[in-house]
């Protein structure tokens, strides 16, 4: 069910020129295309609509000019790094800057030994006030799903985030979440940790290009409106030192970058971007894909 994306992607800021009629039509198509049978999505979704990335390349590729709120979005990432977590935190920071409310973050208590505790100063660095977070530590994975559904029934929440590690969520559970999100208009992010591609014991992780064949999880049916896979990418230039010489290695990591791959989305083609997060402005940009390739190789060569 691909839908024609407006061909104004090149101009970048097409939104103001779209007529009221087109907006209205889009909204109706929206309502039809979401999973639920209810014609009218939640009140908040109607007001806030979607959360744009701020990068026109991504927003134009998505049918709602951003991530639709009042819907379930699944974001998976390798379990050994916090890339998906960072990506979600950036999205939440953007959301928190636009609307009031608190975020319910559900995870299994035991997950902190595997991937660490959510660290308040780290959230603050993303521009997300830690006091706007309610952190729920569930004992079991299914309690996480229950708590998410419970949170989605409260339209005063800004968003609900759930971390699921291994267990398959399944079509039924994800559909329930999607319906609950639609009803209340609260954004829902399902954060999934998948084993790193190439296996846990592989000492030499595959370099360069990615493979689309994450075992098991990618093919699992889900009612999520969009499914993303986020991997870490070599960081961009250090803010303020964009013109630094090649000895960038000692300047340390710069702006956060991720390979954000849109694996599945209703009414949009799957694509991949190299996104860069600007924490000063709270914006995403799409980085030029080749900009770090040479640096990365020389650095790796130096290291070995």
């Amino acid at each position, binding site marked *: 069910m691909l839908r024609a994306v407006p061909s104004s992607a090149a101009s970048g800021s097409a939104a103001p020129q779209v007529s009221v009629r087109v907006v209205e039509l889009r909204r109706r198509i929206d309502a039809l295309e979401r999973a639920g049978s209810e014609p009218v999505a939640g009140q908040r979704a109607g007001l806030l609509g979607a959360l744009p990335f701020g990068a026109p390349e991504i927003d134009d590729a998505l049918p709602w000019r951003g991530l639709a709120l009042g819907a379930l979005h699944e974001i998976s990432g390798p379990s050994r790094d916090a890339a998906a977590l960072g990506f979600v935190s950036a999205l939440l920071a953007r959301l928190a800057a636009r609307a009031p409310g608190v975020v319910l973050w559900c995870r299994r208590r035991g997950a902190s030994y595997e991937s*660490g505790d959510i660290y308040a100063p780290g959230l603050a660095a993303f521009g997300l006030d830690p006091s706007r977070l309610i*952190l729920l*530590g569930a004992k079991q994975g299914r309690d996480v799903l229950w708590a998410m559904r419970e949170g989605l029934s409260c339209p005063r929440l800004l968003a609900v985030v759930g971390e699921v590690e291994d267990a398959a969520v399944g079509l039924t559970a994800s559909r329930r979440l999607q319906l609950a999100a639609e009803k209340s208009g609260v954004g829902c992010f399902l954060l999934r940790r998948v084993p790193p591609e190439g296996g846990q014991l592989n000492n030499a992780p595959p370099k360069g290009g990615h493979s689309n064949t994450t075992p098991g999880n990618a093919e699992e049916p889900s009612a999520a409106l969009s499914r993303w896979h986020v991997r870490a*990418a070599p960081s961009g230039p250090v803010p303020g030192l964009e013109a630094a010489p090649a000895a960038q290695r000692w300047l340390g990591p710069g702006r956060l970058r991720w390979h954000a791959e849109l694996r599945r989305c209703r009414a949009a083609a799957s694509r991949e971007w190299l996104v860069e997060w600007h924490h000063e402005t709270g914006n995403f940009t799409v980085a030029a894909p080749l900009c770090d390739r040479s640096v990365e190789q020389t650095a790796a060569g130096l290291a070995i």
Partner: protein
Amino acid sequence: MRVAAANRAAEAAAGIVPGLPLTDARARLPDLRAVPAEGGADMEALAALGDWCGRWTPWVALDAAGPDAVLGASHGLWLDITGCAHLFGGEMALLNDMARRLARFGFAARAALADTPGAAWAVARHGAMRHISARQKEERHSEAQQGELAKHMSVVAPGKMRAALAKLPLKGLRLVPAETEGLERLGFRAIGDLYGIPRGALARRFGEGVMHRLDQALGREDEPLSPRRPVAPHRVRQDFAEPISSREAIAATARRLLDELAGVLEADALGARRLELALYRGDGKVERIEVGTSAPARAPSHLMRLLAEPLDALDAGFGFDSMALAASQCQPLAPAQLTIDPQTPTTAPAVVAAAQSLFTQEDGDDEVSRLIDRLGGRLGFTNVRRLALFPSHMPERAAVSGVASAPAAKGLSNLSTHVSHWPAAKQRPLCLLPRPEAVEAVAMLPDAPPVIFRWRRMVHHVAKAEGPERIASEWWHAEGAAPLAALLDGEVDSIRDYYRVEDDQGRRFWLYRDAPYRAGMAPGWWLHGLFG
């Protein structure tokens, strides 16, 4: 060894009474069956029975400190039924109900009802009531049984204590044995004998104790009873003609009680912080459900959702025949204004939005705290937390978390010293491992960042690194005085050099090296956090 308690059969057959030496008792009745007394178990059983008596009144006190408490023979229960009797059809009907139910459990109970605890105590133990064993009672037909049971129950009419006590023995005054003996030596046999004696004469000879007890029994002096369980001022209850055990019936009753309680609370402008639902089983057990809320609440639908979860776990046994709901902890809650229905269709959505933000601003907090209640009720309130920053350089101390059920959703008001901003120059990871994990790392120079390290059996080639950021433990947490908990948390390494590193895949980590560098010793490297 002495007899601590004897059943009525033993008493009737051979005059075996508490206090008799066991050898004497065996001599009188060779086939006497004696078991060691278990004072603790007796007390537990009495306490459980007292809890179950909460079906008649919440004000139940244990009478365990009587003069013969040593022998365990005269334990009893006080029930303050002030204002309760009419709920059961009058005082006599209440006593009958009590007698019937207790007899069904096999207890041989005697009860008396009087204006003062002292008078009731005396009449219940020494009043003119016939003894009938529990077994005999069961054998009789129900109507006759009612009549017989009534003989174990007596009601002292209001203001008639003086007459009722006059003929009772002095033991009924709860005196210490020495006082009783002293009075008997002087020829006093009944309580009534003391009525005409001048107070001064008695006090001179026996001290204040005798007059004190007499005054208490006759109502000239107050004797407060302290209830076994805290008595909630707001309590509603429901009896059933037939025991109920189905979940639907219990839930429906709970809902009705909640509606009733909401009315009671609203009249006093209160909201419940803690609710206790007591379900009295027909076989003398009590099931209790306690739920807490994060903010005062009285909305029945919300409280019902909290109660619904533990209702599933009830052990109904043969069914419940009474339920009582009490708000055991309350806080002021102003009567609610009616809010504009957010679903009201309006032409312009913006108007609805504005109206919502005007009228339901506080309602929003309310909804969030209700959500916290529901989450906490099922998963435990300690597992629903809020985060805050704390002004400390030590990474472990820089973040604090508090239980989210603290008043309202206004941040961590119970954590007084939190800061709202984190300096941007200090870059911190998004995830902090609960304990730093040791990594094998290779660095070119002692104070250089690593070029390669192995964490969790995987090798990472460092592409970019920044550091060190030296973080020392705060001087007021001196190393010598490090508490054990800090020691276990790995905080004892008082100086650390932190590096932000990125591997060739772009994964970003927070590593530190033990500092300062000591010649000849390979420094330990630790991974402490993951950046987004």
